[in-house]
């Protein structure tokens, strides 16, 4: 049980690091940046769930991965429209 926990935590941590690096290095497209920074929060909420903290996991999933990601998309949409119109 504890071995599975350790391996899953390591896997999640490695995936979070990769997603974090992607959100910094993917300069080509901003949607990929936003999605991968949302992915960091989503993976973190899975890790909170593994650590038996469902309340924190729900907050992280609702705010970090849900609300923030879509707020960034919303603002990105507004900014793009602004540059196109002048």
């Amino acid at each position, binding site marked *: 049980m*504890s071995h599975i926990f*350790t391996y899953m*935590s*390591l896997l999640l*941590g*490695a995936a979070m*690091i990769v997603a*974090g*690096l992607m959100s*910094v*290095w993917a300069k080509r497209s901003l949607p990929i940046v936003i999605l991968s920074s949302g992915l960091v929060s989503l993976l973190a909420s899975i890790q909170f769930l593994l650590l038996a903290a*469902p*309340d924190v*996991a*729900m*907050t992280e999933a*609702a*705010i970090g991965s*849900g*609300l923030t990601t*879509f*707020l960034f*998309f*919303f*603002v990105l949409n*507004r900014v793009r*429209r*602004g540059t196109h*119109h002048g």
Partner: protein
Amino acid sequence: MVSRFFVFLLIAGVGAIFAALLAGYVPDHELNLTARYYAENTVRDTGAANIVAAIVVTYRGLDTLGEVTVLFLTAAIVGLVLAGSQHQGTHRREVPVSGELLVTGARLLVPLILLLGVYVFVNGHLTPGGGFQGGAILASAILLLLLADPVREFSHRLISAIESTSGLIFVGIGGLGILYAGGFLDNRILPLGTLGELFSAGAIPVIYSFIGLKVGAEFSSMLVDLSETEEP
């Protein structure tokens, strides 16, 4: 290029720190002193099945009041900063129409998301979740509405009325705790009821519901302020 290298170093360093923490992590075989107090006394003291909710609303209720105040200040400052650039309501903005998929999906999903948010904060004392999570889910429904129809006008007066009424009721229930029970935000002003039922745990579900409404209204007012800002 140098800054990217430093970002890589920073992320790798944080990863190494957490890997070291994980390598040294040994789960406790028994609860420590504070945790044991909460595990043994929460049901007797508050009647809440979710110990986290009991701690957040009752034992550490003052901290929750502080958190809600911080969120309120944030929403107020966002509104203040963006107030100068808001468009006057008379002229409609020219915006491209949202896609059919988004509009239809929003029509289907918004009531369901609102229902989930209300479920999460009404059942906060029984299941994981509570006011903050439920409020954020409510606000994400508002965000979906805004994405589907960017020119939709939301009533600022309604949002601020919900926000301030919930805040006043939250503090008012806390004050009633001083008069009728052991202290500020004591939940025993209402009967504790049977463990695990919806109407149990005294004032916790009532307080959590109003926290949920307040948090949802605060997030929504931030989103609506952002959406109504004109491009400079």
